[in-house]
Each structure stands twice: as structure tokens, then as C-alpha cells.
């Protein structure tokens, strides 16, 4: 039996992703709905840029090879370089511009 709070946490997380989703991304042949964020970021205080991430339900993701698998968001191609899996069933992908 699934622990009651874990079930609530997972359901809540999935609902949150669905409510906040702002984009359909493409990973290979799979379309994944999720939250794309590309806020301002700096490196060393010397180089400006952004920090693109894509957050979605973990169950919606196809197999991913870090550093190789590409994701297309808003017609821009990125490489997935890091995955942060949350116990609640949400995954955040860290993206690298090409």
C-alpha cells in the first residue's frame, strides 16, 4: 500500500505541473508538457546568460542520455545535461544551449 502522504504528494505535484505548464517540449518522438524557465544567470559575475530548465512529470519522460539527448522548446534546441528527480514524481531537466 502506498503511504497516504506520498500518494497525496505525487498527486499534488502532478496537478501543479499541469496547472503551471507553459510549453510542449519535444524529446525525440515524445511530446512532453511542462514548465520551461529561462531566467537570467551569470557565471563568475563576468559572463551573462540564462539558466534554462524544463520541469515535468517524471513519468512523461522518455529515456534520456545526459549530454546527448536533445530537447526542443519553443523551436530552440537544447542538450539535456543534468536531471534532478524529485521523490514527488517531478523531474527538472537542466538544459544547455547549442
Amino acid at each position, binding site marked *: 500500500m502506498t503511504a497516504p502522504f506520498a500518494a497525496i504528494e505525487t498527486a499534488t505535484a502532478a496537478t501543479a505541473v499541469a496547472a503551471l505548464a507553459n510549453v510542449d517540449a519535444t524529446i525525440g518522438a515524445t511530446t512532453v508538457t511542462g514548465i520551461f524557465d529561462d531566467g537570467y544567470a551569470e557565471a*563568475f559575475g563576468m559572463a551573462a546568460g540564462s539558466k534554462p530548465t524544463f520541469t515535468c512529470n517524471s513519468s512523461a519522460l522518455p529515456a534520456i542520455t545526459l549530454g546527448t539527448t536533445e530537447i526542443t522548446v519553443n523551436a530552440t534546441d537544447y542538450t539535456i545535461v543534468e536531471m534532478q528527480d524529485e521523490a514527488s514524481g517531478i523531474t527538472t531537466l537542466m538544459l544547455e544551449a547549442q
Partner: protein
Amino acid sequence: MPHVRQQIREAVATLVTSLSTTGTRVFQSRTYPKQESQLPCLLVTTNEEAIAPGSVGTRQERELTVIVRGVAKSAGALDDTLDDIAFEVETAMATDPDLGIGVAGMELRGISVDFDDETDKPVGVIDLNYRITYFTAAGSPGSIA
């Protein structure tokens, strides 16, 4: 006449301008992050300076640390780009050991490299640490003695 520190910084910036990798993207200010269109670039800064009384009269011996910092942002081959920058800077600096203003010595003291992957493409920096030796008369920091 500006302080010799400024004269040195400007002379170094001139020496390292128009290199193959960094072109004219040479900055003498360390404020404000650079946009991707301004990279790869060089930042030339004058830093700490040790001053010792000279052996003759009031002449002061000064040892100034100058950092030539290369900054690059790339999804690939970032190490190669940084090493290219070091090669080009070292070669250029060696063409004019007195910087055209009569400094007594210039020595490359070390190179350090660092990376940051917190932005949309990895950013790398390479610091070439130079020690510039020059002399001034006490109270006359604008002229090499």
C-alpha cells in the same frame, strides 16, 4: 600624467588587442558581466602592488600584479579555447618586455583555470598572472624612474 599602474594596464591591453581568439574584445574594467556577443574576451586588470624603498635615494621599487583574464562561453571545446587564449596572450606579451614604457621587468608567474556550468552554456576563465617590476621616485607615481 596618469599613475604608472594605468599606463601599464593600457600598454598591456594594447599588446593583447587583435589576437586571433579574442579580437578587439579587450576590456580594462571588471564591472558588468559580458554578453555572449562580447565573448570570448580579455579583461586586463591591475591588482595588488608591493612597494619597497629603492637602494638609491628615494627611488621606489614596485612590483605590480597584472591579470590578463580570458573569458569564453561555449557548448564544446572550452578547454581548447582557453588554451588558445593563453598561447596568444603569452606570445603577444613576450614581444614587448618593457611594454614600451620602460618597465624593468615582466614575468609570467602562473596560470589558473576555472569553469562554471550554471548558465545556458559553460563558461570558462583563464587567468595569466604577470608580475611587472618598475621604479618610481617617491611622490612621483606617474613617471618611471
